[in-house]
């Protein structure tokens, strides 16, 4: 099976995620798009892991696991932020947040 199958799939997902980050205004949706990006990375990592697996190298899996963990943390904090912002401002549209005062 071609490794490129997985890699291209990863690339497609990544770009869709990028598109989402750029286009979406709702903070939750932007977070979701970021999750897409992270997942695409994971697919790549595992595909490479498989490529090198014969030589006993499974760093890819380790990395993927770490990414999942970090992603979980990120979503937790991110959503907490969104909640906080929503409580204070009654909106989570990102453009309304562009006037953060220092």
């Amino acid at each position: 099976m071609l490794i490129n199958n997985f890699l291209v799939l990863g690339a497609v997902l990544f770009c869709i995620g990028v598109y989402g980050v750029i286009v979406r205004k709702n903070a939750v949706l932007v977070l979701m798009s970021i999750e897409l990006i992270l997942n695409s990375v994971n697919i790549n990592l595992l595909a490479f892991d498989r490529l090198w697996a014969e030589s006993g190298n499974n760093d890819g899996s380790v990395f993927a696991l770490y990414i999942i963990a970090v992603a979980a943390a990120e979503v937790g904090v991110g959503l907490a932020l969104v909640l906080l912002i929503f409580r204070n401002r009654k909106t989570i549209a990102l453009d309304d947040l562009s006037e953060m005062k220092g």
Partner: protein
Amino acid sequence: MLLASETAAASGWFLAHAWLIPVIPAVAFFLIIFFGKRLPRGGSEIGIAAMLASLVIASGTAYQWIHLVGSTEHADAVSKTVTWFEIGSLKVGIGSRIDGLAMMLLFLVAFISTLVQIYSTEYVRGDRRYTHFFASLTLFSAGMLTMVLAPNMVQLILGWEIMGLCSFMLIGHWWEERANSEAALKAFWTVRVGDMGLLVGTGVLLALFGNLDISEINTKAAEFSGNHALLAFAAVALFIACIGKSGQFPLHTWLPDAMAGPTPVSSLLHSSTMVVAGVFLVARLYPVFHTGLDINIVGHHFNLIAIIGGITVLIAAGLAFVQNDIKKVLAYSTVSQLGYMMMGLGVGAWMPAVFHIFTHAFFKCCLFLCAGSVAHTGSHHSFDMKKDMGGLRKKMPITFGTWMISTAALCGVPFFSGFFSKDEIIDSAKGNDYKVFFVVGLIGAFMTTAYMTRATYLTFFGKARGGAAHFVGEHEDHSHEEAHDEGHDKADAHGHDDHHAPVVHGKPLSFAPDDSPWQITVPLMILGALALVAGYLNAAPFKIEKFHEWLHSSIGVEVPEAPKFEWLNAVPSILLVAAGFAVSLLICKAVFGEGNSPLKGLTQRNALLGAGHKFLVNKYYLDTLYEKVIVRSIAHPISAAAYWTNQHILDGIVNGVGKGGKKTGELVYKYIDQGLVDGVVNGSGTTATHAGGALQPVQSGKVNLYGALLFGAAAVGALVLVLVNS
């Protein structure tokens, strides 16, 4: 630091320590700045002491140089330098390089600076910036002496610019008034325009000769065989600097305005020393100009230097006729005389031109100081000859006497110093086959006498008017008719010297009880005496060639022998001087005198003469051209356009990229913003949230845009990487 060269050691203490001459005033400058205010005499004592010390060393240097010249066949410049900085093969030293020319100017500057400082103690007494005044004067002397001593172009530029700075500070000494600060700025800018040439020219010299050492440049330029066009370019560029500094046409306009400064400043900087820096530069690098501009080539009757000098002689003399401000008459006279010097250098008469620097310094300085003395004591701090002067000769005998001697010297009356230098220039122009400039010189001599006669008449003869009347004790008499030339400058009438108390403080000399105090009259007498005798250092009619003997090694190239003096040759110029005097006196009597003459009010009656007069009064409209057209167009439309471009086009692009919507032109902007974006917004029925302003749609979603920018840049970057690597 290493001693780069030490030819000086053997030649005598003064020659080896000539570097002290500028260093002493430079140190004095800092002393005055930091401690001057606490001293009883406000720092002037430091300044005068420093200048005296400099004068002593300069005199010693001059003595030893003369001794050196006398003892050897061909005296080379004595230089002593330490390495200033080194970049690769370019080694620039700082130190002293004494030769005849430098020696002469060292002495001159130190001498006149000393006198002027003594004069100033009285003249600016009680001024609110007395200390600053002396500090600036001292710094100026340091700068000028640094330049004169320069062994290389870099030190020369250093001194040159320090002088410019001091000129700026001193012209604008009374900066509370706008006119003064404007004049200071004008002076600095105009000179700076010329300095462009100095920078570029130095660059060309470096490229041509690989060195900035003056001796080396001169040697190599004298036997130059490379790209002549490039050398000519260098010469022209450097000459532009001289035009700016020495008030040559067409950059002379700053010099008359510079009279806004206190009179001692005018007499020191703007007549006798600083303004000759341009002439000095030409004389210093004479081989460059000589070779580059084809001076003394048989069959060439014109060259740039001579042409500019010649034009300057005539136009400035023309302008001197219509001035009412005595200082402005002298200022134009200075410009005209500087024109003589340039013309002299241009026609290959190096020695007479340099000699003219020497003699001119004394008599012109003296004239300015006389004008100051008149204003200080006689005319109630006014410089307006028509309103506040007249009939002062009896009351101010010393001032009058020295003025007359200096005027005679300036006019070139035989046996006065100016005769021996100016007449030599005119003679050499003829001898070196520059016929046109011979004629120009003669006309100039005529005009000089004429306007000086007018100024003398107005100041010292006739009836006392205004401030002078008060001083002389006559009642103010308004019955005298207004002069025929009515177009006096507004700026002339006021704005000068009315800042200090109107009381005369110092003690006058006993034999002239009404004249100015001794601090003023003593320098006047010294200078007047020198104006009388200085010419005998190089008096061709009497076969005295001391000056030539001391200085000729500084020329650097072969110039034609000065034509042998014959009284017969001098006859035309003497006759013209006499004619100028006679004609002018007659006209003055008629116009300004008591009687009723048909000449009065002629310019109002005759359209042609009126137009000519107006043309002169408006200084050939050059100032209008510079200020109204050139400067204003740079200062306003051009810079505004540049700034507009910056804000709208360049920044527009940036903002356009950054905000994603605002494109380069207004049109596109409108189209997208109003048409497309707003259309979408309207369509979706949420206009309310976006009604805040036209920019709202583009400003919103910043965070996403940054994402877009980041990813976009990454994508482009990756693409470049791929392309590079494939």
